[in-house]
């Protein structure tokens, strides 16, 4: 039983353990499968228009032979004070008080792309063309998620359709949502368990416990004051070196 804070609000939070992330890309493909994210053809990739709601940024450090690669999975940080929200002229993106999510309402989006410019993480993707799902690939599309048309902004939603389904089932069965009952597709698929997901306001949740004075927890571009909901656990070092 998860007792949220007094007002019943939740703060969905994800923890990315950079020490465990092996960069295998299972989360990237799982996200495409769950959220009908279109795949860019080669010419669009060259034009730098690939759309991946979850991407793995690989940074190089050092020169050969002691060169080091760092994987940093980056997705929408669902910021508490999101810079992308106030700039939208039609409230197509706003802060969902109930779950602490940064909502992107496709039907309301006019396509000014101002939100994407103001996102320091560049995790918002614009549909420059209508997505192409060659017949019969459209059978695979998840009916719970709107297939976005051209001219609309899209981004990671923490698989809000899975959250909603779990919440609805829990409400119909008269119980509150258990910790870990709802996982986004990437967290569910991650082989090494680098991704964890839960409600930070619920003290009993695994996420909350892990974050309690965890020295390794740090947030991406925290100095910008966006209050992101994603905590990265910095990679550890071993006794041997």
């Amino acid at each position, binding site marked *: 039983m998860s007792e949220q804070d007094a007002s019943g609000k939740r703060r969905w939070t994800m923890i990315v353990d950079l020490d465990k992330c092996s960069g295998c890309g299972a989360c990237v493909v799982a996200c495409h499968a769950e959220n009908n994210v279109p795949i860019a053809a080669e010419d669009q990739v060259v034009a730098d228009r690939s759309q991946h709601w979850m991407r793995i940024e690989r940074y190089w450090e050092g020169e050969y032979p002691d060169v080091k690669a760092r994987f940093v999975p*980056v997705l929408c940080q669902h910021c508490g004070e999101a810079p992308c929200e106030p700039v939208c002229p039609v409230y197509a993106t706003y802060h969902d008080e109930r779950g602490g999510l940064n909502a992107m309402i496709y039907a309301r989006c006019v*396509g000014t792309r101002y939100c994407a*410019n103001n996102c320091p993480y560049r995790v918002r993707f614009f549909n420059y063309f209508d997505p192409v799902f060659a017949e019969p690939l459209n059978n695979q599309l998840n009916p719970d998620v709107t297939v976005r048309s*051209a*001219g609309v902004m899209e981004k990671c939603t923490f698989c809000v359709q899975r959250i909603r389904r779990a919440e609805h089932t829990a409400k119909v069965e008269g119980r509150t949502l258990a910790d870990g009952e709802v996982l986004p597709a990437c967290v569910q698929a991650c082989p090494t368990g680098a991704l964890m997901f839960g409600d930070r306001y619920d003290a009993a949740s695994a996420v909350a416990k892990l974050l309690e004075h965890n020295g390794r927890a740090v947030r991406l571009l925290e100095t910008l004051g966006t209050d992101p909901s994603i905590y990265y656990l910095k990679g550890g070092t071993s006794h041997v070196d």
Partner: protein
Amino acid sequence: MSIETERNPWMSAPPESEDEQEQVEHLRKDHLLLDPVGMEAMNQDALGSMTRHGRWTWMLIVVLGGLAMMAGVGWLVQLFVGLGFTGLNRTIFWGMYIINLVYFIGIGHAGTFISAAFRVMGFETRRPIARAAETVTLFALAAAGLFPIIHLGRPWKVYWMIPIPNQRQLWPNFQSALEWDAMAIMTYVVGSVLFIYIGLLPDLAMARERTGVNWRRRLYSALSLGWRGTDRQWALHESVSTIFAYVIIPVMFSVHTIVSWDFAMTIQPGWHSTIFGPFFIVGALYSGVAAVLVAMGFLRRFLKLGYFIREEHFDVMAKFLLIMSFAWIYFYFGEFLVTWYGNLPPEMTILDLLLYGEAAPLWWLMIFCNVVVPVGLLWMRRVRRNPGILFVIAVFIQVGMYLERYLIVGVMLGRPELPFNYSWYYPGLEIPIAIGAFSFVIFFYFIFTVFVPIISTWEVGEGQFLHGLRKIGRKITKFKSDMH
């Protein structure tokens, strides 16, 4: 036929001799307001200018119309297929459409500034060129107003940005800079259009009386609202013009500040700076005045308005341009120094990109156009009084200012906080649409000069009525009477 133009040779140096007659002659030739040829001749010349388009200019008009149509077709394709034809990508979401918006609104500001601010400050040189400048504003704003629609992903939903009641009970978000843009540009458009119209009334009345062509007569009598020039109407006209002049100057300042706040409100490195407001206004006036110089050069050369638009006007405008270039350099250096000295990593990445990186050629070209050319040449009196050279300098400044905005929007956006997503901007469909926009402005400018007298003869007449010559000691100088 225009008033013969050899009355003001290009290089009029003041006469050495003491002879009074020569001095008067020189002063007359140099200053329009001291060289009255009577309202009748002036009306004749001003109305004549409407029909002086030669074969070349008509061909140019047709070409420009074609280019504008081409851009319209390009936009329709983009509307139905998607924004994929542009050069935008997952890092750079704003491109030449927003650059065009800022550029054309920038040009729009000079017109209003010259007619409103000069009127408030009482600069007499505004009299012949006020309407020419305001027309630049009018059509620059028209073009600028199109771009917020063209750059939208789903333009047919733009009515959601208008605060009208709807069944969804949803209202636009008035904390967004784009919403302020909408409000500010609407106010500015309304202000500019009405300001031109008020100034145009007496001239339309004059044209109504003089024109012989049937459809022109019906057009002007409808447009001039039955203006008879009674003292009561003139008094109202004076006070409404004054109200507009005083109100439209702060509105002008607010519009370009808000347009610059579209960028300053973000936390994008290179954009998030407090001086963007004044910096953009100075940039606007800078490119705007250059645009007005271009217009003046065109009117004088092609519509043979040599009598009205003389060297003294070019001289004043060029000085104003010189001052604006100093102001612009001052602001740009300020921003550059603050960024460089602060040495914040994301900001420094952008600085390196501009100075030595991929964008270096564009940046140095901009510096050449905006700094070297104007400051290098405009201090010379001979340059300031020569419309040909000023035309060239003005075009350089246009290129420079367009590049400055291109660097701010297209290039700086390519360097976000997370280095993995750096990108470069290769414009695609935006180029034909930008060319189309330029031709749209110039096309409608020509059409405007065909339908409406571009010189405000009543203002020039009033000016000449108020000015005269006075002999102080051995020198004959001009003076303005305080009968106003």
